[in-house]
């Protein structure tokens, strides 16, 4: 039982991080119908911003923890907005394949610029949060894990409010549904797209810091695997669907953790992806996704 709870907790924190990344994939897909492959590298940049901010702030303090998180989120929001503005926007209206290839190029650009600037050697992430272990009846809970889960949950609630309760959030849903109709009510879709990139990238930045707290070794290629998993989670939930991305991420995080804790651990990724393929066979549009009706 204890072991089960332990794994549940581990799965939850891993899933929460996947969710933070997956939300950005799914939101951008929602408004632009393309996969922003550079998103996983924005996550990596978030971890590096956290690294440099964390070095300059007093360690082992909750306040520095939040300052680090805020710096990574703000930095990544700006980066995401810039990438869209400079790289993707000029290609808008052209074939989707062009943008997809460009996104892959952007991803490689960030990864190898990262290696050029930060070097390829992994760096230890500073311990910004007081490292405390809480032990209840043999259940070992690290402070980091609690923070990851709580912060991720709070961010998802904030996102929910931003998307469903604000005017710009409603505009974002309107653009995702029908960009032409959105323009006809006076929505400037450029502004909404920037907002979407900013929001998604800020969440990825937060994900980068939280990930680095749990796996405190960072390098410029660290985004590749979690990014792929988060992308899979977004597809699993139904790409373009916001609650779906969170759900898909939790399922993936849980599956991976439980398999990791079993004797099948060597095959954890293979099994996790087999689960994915299995679900998609039965629900091709993802768990919560629906085929969008064709737009005119």
């Amino acid at each position, binding site marked *: 039982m204890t072991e089960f709870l332990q794994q549940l907790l581990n799965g939850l924190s891993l899933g929460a991080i996947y969710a933070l990344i997956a939300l950005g994939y799914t939101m951008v897909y929602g408004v632009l119908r393309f996969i922003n492959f550079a998103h996983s590298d924005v996550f990596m940049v978030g971890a590096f911003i956290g690294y440099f901010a964390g070095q300059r702030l007093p360690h082992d303090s909750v306040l520095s923890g939040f300052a680090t998180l805020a710096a990574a989120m703000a930095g990544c929001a700006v980066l995401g907005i810039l990438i869209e503005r400079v790289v993707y926007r000029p290609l808008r209206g052209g074939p989707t394949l062009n943008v997809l290839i460009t996104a892959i190029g952007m991803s490689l650009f960030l990864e190898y610029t990262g290696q050029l600037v930060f070097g390829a050697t992994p760096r230890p992430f500073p311990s910004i949060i007081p490292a405390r272990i809480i032990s209840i009846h043999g259940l070992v809970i690290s402070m980091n894990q609690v923070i990851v889960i709580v912060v991720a949950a709070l961010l998802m609630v904030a996102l929910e409010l931003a998307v469903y309760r604000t005017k710009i959030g409603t505009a974002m849903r309107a653009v995702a549904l029908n960009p032409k109709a959105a*323009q006809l009510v006076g929505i400037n879709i450029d502004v909404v797209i920037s907002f979407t990139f900013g929001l998604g990238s800020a969440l990825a930045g937060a994900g980068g810091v939280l990930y680095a707290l749990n796996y405190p070794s960072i390098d410029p290629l660290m985004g590749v695997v979690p990014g792929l998993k988060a992308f899979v989670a977004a597809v699993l939930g139904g790409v373009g669907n916001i609650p779906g991305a969170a759900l898909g991420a939790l399922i993936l995080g849980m599956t991976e953790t439980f398999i990791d804790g079993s004797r099948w651990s060597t095959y954890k990724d293979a099994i996790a992806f087999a689960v994915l393929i299995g679900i998609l066979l039965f629900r091709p549009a993802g768990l919560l996704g629906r085929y969008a009706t064709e737009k005119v």
Partner: protein
Amino acid sequence: MLEVSNLFVSYGAIAALRGISLRVEKGAIVTLIGGNGAGKTTTLRTVSGLHRPLGGTVRFLGEDITHVPVHKIVARGLGHVPEGRMIFSNLTVDENLAMGAYLLKDKAAIARNRDYVFGIFPRLKERLRQTAGTLSGGEQQMLAIGRALMGDPKFLMLDEPSLGIAPRLISTIFEKIIEINRDRGIAILLVEQNANLALEISSYAYVMETGHVTVEGRSEELRDNPQLKAAYLGG
């Protein structure tokens, strides 16, 4: 109000508009009729900026808007109820109306517009919390018109508001169009396949065929035009 001169629009190699000119005066109801594929929808979309013309100009309220972005044209007072309604189907009725007033900052003005919309379409008020996609065709059309009215347009373009609507609702929608024009002084450009109805409520009409305006004139005169009678007015 609106002055379209010599518009040319094409979709790739297909020429959709080959030199369209038309005018809508302040406070008028003008109709654009013609068969399927004549280019009516393309004309409206080019006026609101959703398509860019290869040639020709669109002037609105005395200014050239041919190359102005859609949202800025809307900000100048143009409302467009598009073909197929294009309501935001997974938003609630309430959210659809709120989006209609996207550019308005003044809360009191938004509240006034809502009251006006509920006055002409009381059914929308009953369905505020409902997801727009679950409305009937007629209700969706009301919502599409209501959404456009929320933005306080000076000029409203309606693309086949009778399409896909229960026959008994069609006359209601047309009465409301007259009411909107009369009460709010909103000039209207109405695209219709139902030429009889359109000629009845409008003062001036243009007839389109394959990208050209073939006939134009005062609506009451066109109602008696033998050529039109044969082609569009059911004998």
